[in-house]
């Protein structure tokens, strides 16, 4: 009975369709998760919404694009892809990390003790600056740029659901990077310094932690991850443009808040969840309304559960 109602309403009741949206959502979610990590780590340590983070992601996408063009993408295929991609990943993540740390050094560091409005406005300005620079770089401009289609295009059917190799690639890369991050945060001295600084900056400083360097490192890692996100975005969607970061950034931020701002595991889970929400909204409502759904989720989460699903991890001291 309810099935007929749904069909009449125009909603697709095919379970395979649902499965496909789910799979798509997980792939998209992987990208959002990588970007969300940057937002959450930075907010956890300096309580700043790094508005420019989405644009750092875009820079990563374009930088990797130029890297691939430089090396000559068309010449690689099959197993030869692996070293190529490795090089591109390393170069992009390094560049992005440095970019993020530089932005922190130049624009945000001086404002650490200013009222929160000031660094937030600065971040908005930085976002605009990055977009503006991308716009005027010869070879970019306002148009969509076709990103090389390097990944294998196979797909498999599992339980009646279509799963693409691209999707698997994206999720695997994201998971690997997240695991590496986890190891780093929990297992190394620098990671411990990051956690300590996020919890209580003064105490950490008294314990001998170099606050400036720790914060710079946080920005570095977050931006590097966003860079990786840019690469897999490009490889998955094969199309990038200079304001990509704006929308993607807000969605990723929503994911970070959903999972619990400052909470790294939360950002990862939030990313996947938002990806699924987005995919479901696109699949069952329409592409046009998926944005509205996401922004509404953002507002609803902030109003009703600002600490997110897993709980926020922000310093107790302002």
């Amino acid at each position: 009975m309810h099935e007929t109602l749904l069909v009449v309403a125009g909603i697709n009741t095919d379970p395979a369709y649902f499965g496909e949206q789910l799979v798509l959502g997980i792939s998209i979610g992987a990208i959002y998760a990588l970007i969300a990590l940057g937002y959450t780590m930075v907010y956890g340590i300096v309580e700043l919404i790094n508005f420019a983070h989405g644009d750092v992601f875009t820079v990563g996408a374009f930088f990797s694009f130029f890297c691939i063009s430089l090396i000559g993408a068309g010449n690689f295929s099959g197993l030869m892809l692996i070293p190529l991609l490795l090089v591109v990943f390393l170069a992009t993540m390094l560049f992005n990390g440095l970019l993020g740390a530089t932005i922190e050094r130049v624009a945000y560091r001086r404002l650490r003790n200013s009222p929160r409005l000031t660094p937030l406005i600065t971040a908005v300005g930085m976002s605009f600056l990055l977009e503006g620079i991308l716009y005027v770089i010869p070879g970019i401009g306002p148009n969509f740029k076709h990103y090389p289609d390097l990944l294998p295009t196979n797909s498999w059917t599992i339980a009646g659901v279509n799963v693409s190799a691209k999707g698997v690639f994206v999720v695997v890369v994201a998971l690997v990077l997240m695991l590496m991050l986890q190891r780093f945060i929990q297992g190394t001295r620098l990671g411990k310094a990051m956690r300590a600084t996020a919890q209580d900056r003064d105490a950490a400083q008294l314990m001998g932690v170099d606050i400036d360097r720790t914060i710079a490192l946080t920005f570095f890692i977050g931006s590097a991850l966003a860079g990786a996100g840019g690469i897999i975005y490009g490889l998955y969607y094969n199309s990038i443009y200079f304001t990509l970061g704006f929308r993607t950034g807000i969605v990723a931020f929503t994911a970070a808040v959903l999972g619990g701002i400052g909470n790294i595991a939360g950002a990862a889970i939030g990313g996947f969840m938002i990806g699924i929400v987005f995919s479901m909204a696109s699949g069952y409502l329409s592409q046009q309304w998926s944005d509205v759904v996401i922004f509404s989720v953002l507002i609803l989460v902030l109003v009703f559960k600002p600490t997110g699903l897993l709980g926020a991890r922000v310093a107790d001291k302002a």
Partner: protein
Amino acid sequence: MSGERYSVFGRELPIPAKVGQLGLIAIGIAFFLSVPSIFSSVDVSRMADGGVFILLALGLNIVVGYAGLLDLGYAAFFAIGAYTYAILASSHYNIHLAFWPLLLIAAIVAALFGVILGAPTLRLRGDYLAIVTLGFGEIVPRVVLNLEGVTGGVNGLSGLDQPKIPALGPFPALTFGYNPIPYYYTILGVIILSIIIIRNLQYSRLGRAWQAIREDELAAASMGINTVTTKLLAFAMGAAFSGFGGCFYASKLALVTPEAFTFVISVTILCMVVLGGMGNIAGVIVGAAAIYALTTYVLIQLPLWMTGISQATGFTLLNTIDFTQYNFIIFGLLLISFMLLRPQGLLPSRVRRAELKHGDIAGSMGAQPETVTGTSSSEDL
């Protein structure tokens, strides 16, 4: 008070302060009244458009400059005001309300949306509020775009009614038509009225409450100020100004499309407020005028000047740069540099002026008041 001399940029003139101020205002008003006789029709039209932005900046100043709430979705209320006019004064729905009451209606509709958005969200801390307003600023144009049946989707609504001044006694009815001059005078009048109202607000119980909230929200609440309703009032007033401006803009352009109400507009107005000086009426007006002039005159003329310079100096490289594309970079650099170097803006507010007078160097170097926007940092045990 009688002993104080009028001072301009720190230099004293041998006239009493009050006389100097009134004199300047009188000269200003005389100038602005005679603009249509001095400038060309195209320029007058542009000035009328610029006036809309000045109005918007004044409105955002209440939200950001007085109450200290960062609104990144201000263009949404602009859109709401504009579409309210489009729907209620055109042949699309065969509703033809008059322009003048519609200005008020649009302001009220926008204010209502402001209350709807603000009521659940204004208790959030400053940065979260900013993102929420950003979200709202994205939702509104998107909804407008999607509800094609109602709003005309991407093509918007065109052919909107022209404002009319009804016949009064010996004076015949005057339809604005495509003549920019009545628009110019209307917006000039509105701006003057707004300045008076906002200035009154600044030195009132409500204005003080806003500034107290901006300085220290917890202390403000402890003074008996209901911070939620007071913030809501600021937010709604800002929205009303924006809606009002949107209605005016729609009627002048006789067209509304979702493209005109993007995040870039919100940031542009924010730039105006930041540049001019948050909380300073004159500063905000100057900032708005400066940025509007920048985007409509300078950036367009710059290639011509560059051609001239490059021909004169032989630097042909200058010829190749297309400055109209540099909007984003300019706005970005503007926001960043002002926040880093001069967060109080170009014209110091009366607060800063007092500091500079007392030689409070630390204060004038941009140290901000310890605003606790949103945080309720309670005392130690």
